[in-house]
């Protein structure tokens, strides 16, 4: 099969880029080492949660104040809007409606009862926390403690009760993970049997906060059905990985890739590119049994930063981009990677590839190094997605830019208007 574009990486940026390029008529192939941040994140769409130590209320108002090399500055606010609008349409079509507006951040409740700033929330996490809250946990589910969550919400000023419910009998009586639990919620009979207990546990509350496990493979329908039966809004709290909301979304991405005829292969880490002058002509990767070479006319690198395996942090303090050997600014010693305080910003979290407005990697002189390779998402320099809460926004905005100008990027004279 002839491939126009190889997308490397299956996190939010790679998936969005692959789908959008395919929707634009390109023949796309997606290869990746493994699953990406969909599985690890809280299952929301962050755009900009923090600038420095300050929580951001209005993300769009803050973009102009970001550093000049920040991905948002490079692709512009219109690319961000386009990325978010497109995502909402894509998710809604998959039965995963999202609420929110980039003009104003919302807050997502977490298992610790903290409220993390984010932009778009899937419906099961989107209801407003108002009035009296009931936090309801599930007996023997170790990844959510109603008491701990309630304590945090109380600290944030809410009136809260907490309770833990026993599940109706099901196949995993002693031990279960979030994913197994979510699968159980896909079953209507299970929900029907649990609903009265849940309603009793949340009696007197206006909103119930529950762990984010209400269904795995039927979109938001199990949540909506359970909410109807219980009779009050149910809000899913974000848990530690693996992320059930992220898995719902990942299934939707996969279905869309299949619909579009995009070949996708996980477990194929890209290891190198083959070049012809300033063009990449093929991507090499490790297959299960032998090296695989994928020829192409264009490459989108969405391999992530140090966390995503797109950049290797070396013992001597240097940083290496792992696929194309792109330059990444390192440190004199590895102590430069980290901050003394765990919860502070770690410099290696912001490490990345410097690109031009077309997202092509550039050298010290600012000129593109490769005419037909572009970088998206966490691999980009100039931002720390964890610290500033921008991961999905940057992924969707940079994927939008790639989709908008694909096929024309080898024209070095092309001028793209910046917002």
């Amino acid at each position, binding site marked *: 099969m002839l491939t126009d574009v190889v997308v490397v990486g299956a996190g939010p940026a790679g998936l969005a880029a692959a789908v959008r390029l395919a929707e634009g008529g390109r023949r796309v192939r997606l290869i990746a080492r493994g699953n990406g941040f969909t599985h690890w994140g809280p299952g929301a769409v962050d755009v900009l949660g923090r600038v420095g130590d300050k929580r951001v209320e209005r993300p769009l108002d803050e973009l102009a104040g970001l550093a000049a090399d920040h991905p948002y500055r490079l692709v512009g606010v219109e690319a961000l809007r386009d990325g978010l609008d497109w995502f909402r349409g894509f998710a809604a079509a998959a039965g995963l409606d999202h609420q929110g507006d980039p003009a104003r951040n919302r807050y997502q409740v977490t298992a610790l009862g903290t409220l993390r700033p984010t932009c778009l929330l899937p419906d099961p996490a989107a209801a407003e926390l108002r009035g009296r809250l009931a936090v309801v946990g599930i007996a023997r589910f170790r990844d959510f403690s109603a008491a701990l969550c309630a304590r945090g919400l109380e600290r944030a000023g809410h009136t809260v009760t907490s309770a833990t419910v026993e599940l109706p009998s099901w196949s995993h009586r002693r031990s279960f993970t979030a994913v197994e639990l979510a699968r159980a919620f896909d079953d209507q009979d299970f929900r029907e049997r649990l609903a009265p*207990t849940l309603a009793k546990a949340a009696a*007197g509350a206006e909103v119930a906060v529950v762990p984010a496990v209400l269904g795995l493979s039927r979109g938001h329908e199990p949540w909506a059905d359970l909410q109807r039966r219980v009779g009050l809004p149910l809000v899913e709290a974000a848990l530690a990985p693996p992320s059930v909301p992220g898995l719902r979304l990942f299934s939707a991405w996969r279905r869309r890739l299949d619909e579009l005829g995009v070949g996708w292969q996980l477990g194929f880490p890209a290891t190198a590119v083959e070049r012809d002058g300033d063009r990449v002509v093929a991507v090499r990767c490790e297959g299960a049994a032998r090296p695989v070479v994928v020829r192409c006319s264009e490459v989108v690198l969405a391999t992530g930063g140090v966390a995503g395996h797109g950049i290797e942090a070396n013992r001597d303090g240097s940083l290496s981009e792992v696929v194309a050997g792109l330059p990444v600014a390192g440190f004199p010693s590895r102590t430069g990677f980290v901050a003394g305080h765990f919860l502070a910003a770690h410099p290696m979290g912001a490490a990345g590839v410097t690109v031009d407005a077309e997202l092509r990697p550039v050298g010290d002189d600012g000129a593109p190094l490769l005419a037909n390779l572009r970088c998206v998402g966490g691999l980009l320099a100039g931002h720390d997605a964890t610290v500033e809460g921008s991961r999905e926004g940057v992924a969707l905005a940079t994927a939008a830019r790639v989709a908008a100008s694909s096929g024309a990027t080898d024209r070095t004279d092309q001028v793209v208007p910046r917002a």
Partner: protein
Amino acid sequence: MTSLDTQVVVVGGGVTGVAVLRDLALRGVGAVLVERSDLGTGTSGRWHGLLHSGGRYAVRDEESARECIEENMVLRRIAPHTIEDLGGLFVLLPADDPSYAERFVAGCAASGIPVEELSPAQARRREPLLTNGIEAAYAVPDGGIDSWSLIRSMVADAEAHGARVLPRHPVVGFERDGDRLAAVRVRDQAGGEERLIGCEWVVNAAGAWAGRVGALAGVPIEMIPGKGVMVVMASRYVRGVVNACRKPADGDIVVPQHEVAILGTTSVQVEDPDDVTVDPAEVDRMIDMCAQMVPSLSGGRVLRAFAGSRPLYKPPQQAGETSGDTRAVSRTFTVLDHAERDGLANLFSIVGGKLTTCRQMAEKLVDQLGERMGVEVPCSTAEQVLPGAEHGSHRLAGPLAAVEQEQDYGTLLCECELVTTERVREAVAGGLVELEDLRRKLRLGFGPCQAAFCAWRAAAVVCELGGSGGLESEAGAQVAGGHAEPSGSPPVDQGGGPERDLLGGLARFLQERWRGQLASVWGDQARQALLNHAIYRGIFDLDAEHQDEASAWGSGGLDWGQHPRDDPGADSLQQASRAAVGHELVGDGDGRGEE
């Protein structure tokens, strides 16, 4: 100020102090031990976990070698549950001096250390990851020993014989009456108040900090804190202990324990025993040197690095001969009778020594002290087995077998170290001041993920057991189909003090784990660190507010002077009059200390 009276106050809650306490208690002497922090937080908690055969001293320090092999055999008898019978090899590499090997064998013979020469092929059958190029190998009865488990067992035995332990009671001064110390002044960190402990005798067993305690009593003791750096690898690599057969030097030992291997060590003189900072170059050196023996270490995943301070003592006659390398100072121990030495009638200090010989150190000291006190009961610590010994030797697979037997997978809070919810509940109910104490009690957070998943789960257990006013009872009244929280266990804090801040305690736990990683983050561990950051900061949104509470801990060495636990602050989980290190877990065989 509250008062308490006893015969002997022991200062210092490391293995030495605890061994002294047990010895006194077994001889019927009333004794109270005071410790500035949690038990086993000084040198006893920051070492490689080697139960010495004595081989490391066989060539140059026969006295230490002899003490080691004697006590090695005693500990195997009285505390088998704290010991993993690893065995050890001394390997001679091509670059090493063959005559050292001859002197090593002769030294072992002279010191009574059983030694067996293996051919290179035999050695590699026993240790497949050894380098191809060894010249010879010698097998000795090295082992692994868990200092925290040993401490818990000795404390349990001492308490059963009437002794008392007061952790988190730093000594702030002594009340002097002529040429005697009449009382020890300590500060209760949980309550914030000072207590006076009236006593007839004082034993300074503060190890590397003995000089500081001496200064408070007005006697000069010159300690030479010898900092040793150790590196923790993410898997065991070796079946037994592997030593280089050469004059002790940097990076010449690999000790496997639990799921990790510890590489050791350096020996550098430092001014301050609290200086436990690690330089990245020291980590590199440890790896490069140990990789000469076990080459695959060089590409391995480093979990973290840490340092401890050896309690080396410089007798007055040696004063002046200082050199940077503290290996030249004898590793044997010395009992100082300050009556003869300084005219202070009722103070003894015990300095030097090593974990393997802690029991013998205590015996020698209490023999001398007992003679002065007129105690005629002989020492029985070498014969009386410790509580927990009935479980037999520690085996690597023991904890997994226990979990499998109980089919308890689902309640595992810490998958790396196989810690179940029930174990955390027991530990919390046994008295807990900081979430961080669970690390020493249960090994929580020691594994490859470095607390990515267990720390907040443990915080949840603490929260559930702790109660929080009307919160749960209100909910409990409403739930008929389910059950209310907490279930069964008593509330931890009955004092109704200031609202505890669990998220602050969680941030401190994470900061303690992080501190040990600062010099060793690269490769896979860099990804792990950023994943953990994405969980705690990204998902859970622990931020500057919680960081502030953690930051007082500092990012370098422990600074006890500014320690937030000095402040009777927001997160004391301590039960009013309960010792912080309970003995409810004795004999669990799952508490091997590594740092």
